[in-house]
């Protein structure tokens, strides 16, 4: 109390609070940044909201055999990505599939959105696979999938 007057304590606490909030926001940004950088290296960064947290957890656990490819990351990066995915994942449904789906294209909502007529398009060599979102969804890279930005290649 001899070193700091009451008003000073208030000011110092305010500064500490700002720094703490700023660091927390910064950490979340760093998590998202790690996710975007790593998860868009070989394909578009599939939005976290497309799968529940249990699915992402399993995907992160098996990165050394990620759909037939080694996509392993170091422990520090994995921690950041996992934290981001857990926060941004689709809320778990009450009738959650067991085991959790690992392919976005196998989820019920995906199949509902892409009916059979569209499925034929995936065999188009310009599309190649249902996982190639950007072939039709022009803004897929930015995580936007509205019909307005849809352009199915002929």
């Amino acid at each position, binding site marked *: 109390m001899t070193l700091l007057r009451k008003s000073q304590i208030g000011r110092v606490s305010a*500064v500490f609070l700002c*720094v703490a909030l700023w660091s927390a926001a910064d950490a979340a940004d760093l998590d998202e940044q790690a996710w975007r950088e790593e998860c868009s290296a*070989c*394909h*578009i960064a599939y939005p976290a909201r497309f799968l529940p947290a249990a699915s992402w957890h399993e995907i992160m656990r098996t990165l*050394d055999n990620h*759909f*037939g*490819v*080694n*996509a*392993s*990351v*170091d422990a520090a990066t994995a921690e950041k990505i996992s934290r981001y995915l857990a926060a941004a994942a689709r809320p778990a449904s009450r009738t959650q599939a067991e085991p959790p789906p690992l392919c976005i294209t196998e989820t019920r909502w995906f199949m509902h959105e892409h009916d059979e007529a569209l499925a034929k398009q995936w065999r188009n060599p310009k599309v*190649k*696979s249902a*996982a*190639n979102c950007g*072939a039709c969804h022009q803004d897929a890279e930015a995580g936007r999938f509205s019909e307005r930005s849809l352009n199915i290649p002929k």
Partner: protein
Amino acid sequence: MLVRVLMLLSFAALSIAAHAETPQDLLQGWRAEARAQSAQFAGFSAERGRSLYFAQPADWSCSTCHTNDPRGGGRHAVTSKPIKPLSPLANPARFSDAAKVEKWFKRNCQDVLKRECSVVEKGDLLTFLMSQ
């Protein structure tokens, strides 16, 4: 005091971010490591690097995605996502970050060879890329 600590921290972060390697730095490091591993090590070979680049012991070779010309762009064999040129001569961003280089060697050596690459193989491959 707090401001000074913050300034120091940001300075430290900046200097870490600014730290970058060159292909020559990486080769030098791997050369020292190879020498330490074996007295018989007689330097990296672009020819051995070429054989490694085109080797396809299982499903894939390096050239499957990076194409027969590492100075040109490639395409991911599964996802079709475009891949920027692998050669540092065509793409200076390549082989400029040791952590990134080790990450991709670890992944792609597992994909192609089903094992990690030796330090000699890494040096051979980069020597091949630099000779193209």
